[in-house]
């Protein structure tokens, strides 16, 4: 297939653009793609994952404000990034942004990951408390299982373990 831009070189990049159900295909060579700039992923003007994210961020939960919800923080007071900038760049400015924009992030994370809460690894030095809390949650689930299966003796043991951990947590 020949490049549809220059009509000389073979087309090596193939794109399909679908806008409102209308499909357009591009077949161009690398040289023309570079000249056009916009076609090569990773170039400064090119399409990137961040552009895609800003698309997702356009889904503002405006209904919330209409319902008289609290006005939301629009700027991270640590690094100064505004929510609008975050929307454009698709990237946070610092770890504090997560706190400042927290109310708006569930929707985004649900769209990107299908989830909103971390369940993986926890840093050892700062994570002792978090680990204990997570352990309590696991034990509570286990306790429920045992009760349902009428294994009351082992359920009692688990209940004691939970109490022990809760005591430790409140002591901290």
């Amino acid at each position, binding site marked *: 297939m020949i490049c549809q831009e220059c009509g000389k070189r073979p087309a090596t990049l193939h794109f399909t653009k679908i806008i409102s159900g209308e499909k357009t295909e591009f077949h161009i060579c690398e040289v023309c793609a570079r000249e056009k700039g916009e076609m090569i992923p990773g170039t400064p003007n090119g399409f990137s994952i961040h552009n895609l994210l800003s698309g997702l961020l356009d889904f503002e939960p405006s209904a919330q404000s209409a319902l008289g919800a609290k006005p939301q923080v629009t700027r991270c007071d640590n690094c100064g990034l505004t929510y609008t900038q975050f929307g454009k760049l698709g990237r946070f400015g610092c770890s504090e942004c997560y706190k400042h924009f927290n109310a708006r992030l569930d929707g985004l994370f649900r769209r990107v*990951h299908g989830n909103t809460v*971390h*369940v*993986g*690894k926890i840093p050892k030095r700062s994570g002792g408390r978090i680990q204990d809390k997570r352990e309590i949650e696991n034990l509570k689930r286990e306790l429920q299982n045992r009760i349902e299966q009428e294994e009351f003796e082992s359920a009692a043991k688990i209940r004691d373990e939970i109490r022990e951990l809760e005591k430790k947590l409140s002591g901290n």
Partner: protein
Amino acid sequence: MEHRSYTDNALSEWMKGHGPDSEIVISSRVRIARNLQTQPFPMLATNQQSEEVLNQITSALQNEELNTISNFDFIPLTELSELDKRVLVEKHLISPNLANESRNGAVILSENESVSIMVNEEDHLRIQCLCPGFQIKEAWDLASQIDDIFESQLEYAFDENRGYLTSCPTNVGTGIRASVMMHLPALVLTQQINRILSAITQVGLAVRGLYGEGSEALGNLFQISNQITLGQSEDEIIDNLYSVARQIIEHEKAAREKLLIESKPRIIDRVMRSYGILSHAGIMDSKEAAQRLSDVRLGIDLGIIHQVSTHIMNELMVMAQPGFLQKQSGEKLSAEDRDIRRAELIRERLSII
């Protein structure tokens, strides 16, 4: 300079090893993204702030435990020429982003190049581990071990609910991106690949590759990686990728057997033609090189070609790229000159036997 060996040899030491299922899985890679609690992410950091990050990470490097894993070389990006950077990108040791855009960027490489730690890329710290063949769990274990060592020295940005905080929302949570690079020529030839690829994307995994015409990836190489980093544990993410990749390996094996039974003369013809062209051509563009090398690799795996090793195929995959070709010839080459040099290099390597 110390970094010379990293940019002179096409093949990293780790690539010379033979991993499990290496006739289908070329390599397994795990990358984890981490940030320091107090500093703005690299995108917004001032020169001074990114220098502080670099200093903090450099001092964490002094940890003795790290030396039990390997000797590491610390290479600031400013010490590398544009061409050297490009070679490291082609070897997957650094990202194009680190090479082109980072401020106070650096890479820390283990002796055998299986560990590459990027500083001041999109995140402060990106730990990447590469293993030959299908060893995704091993790659994760190593990455996690190095993560623990850094974590004992540095205050990571971590939130109880969101997990490890990253610059891009697509990495938050575990910060983990695990991927396997697979060579799937038989699934492409038997036209089963589209069905399989669309099934992969249904289970939260992504497929990447340099796409050529239609659905054909360049050189039949496909990189399969996890999409989701939040709400699944690292083990779940790795297990999910492992089991999907395992199934693809079995499908590819079955497709190869089927090809051998049903169209052996055609396969032999295809493989030998590609071998003939690679060992005699005078001009070879990168797309054709990728496809022909894929055919020869399949020929080696199927026992049709004995005189070339997979090792040489791996080497050629890296050497046939623009950065390396220019590095080897010591000058900047035009596209046509590169095609000529590529053909020459492949001829040389294939006649070494």
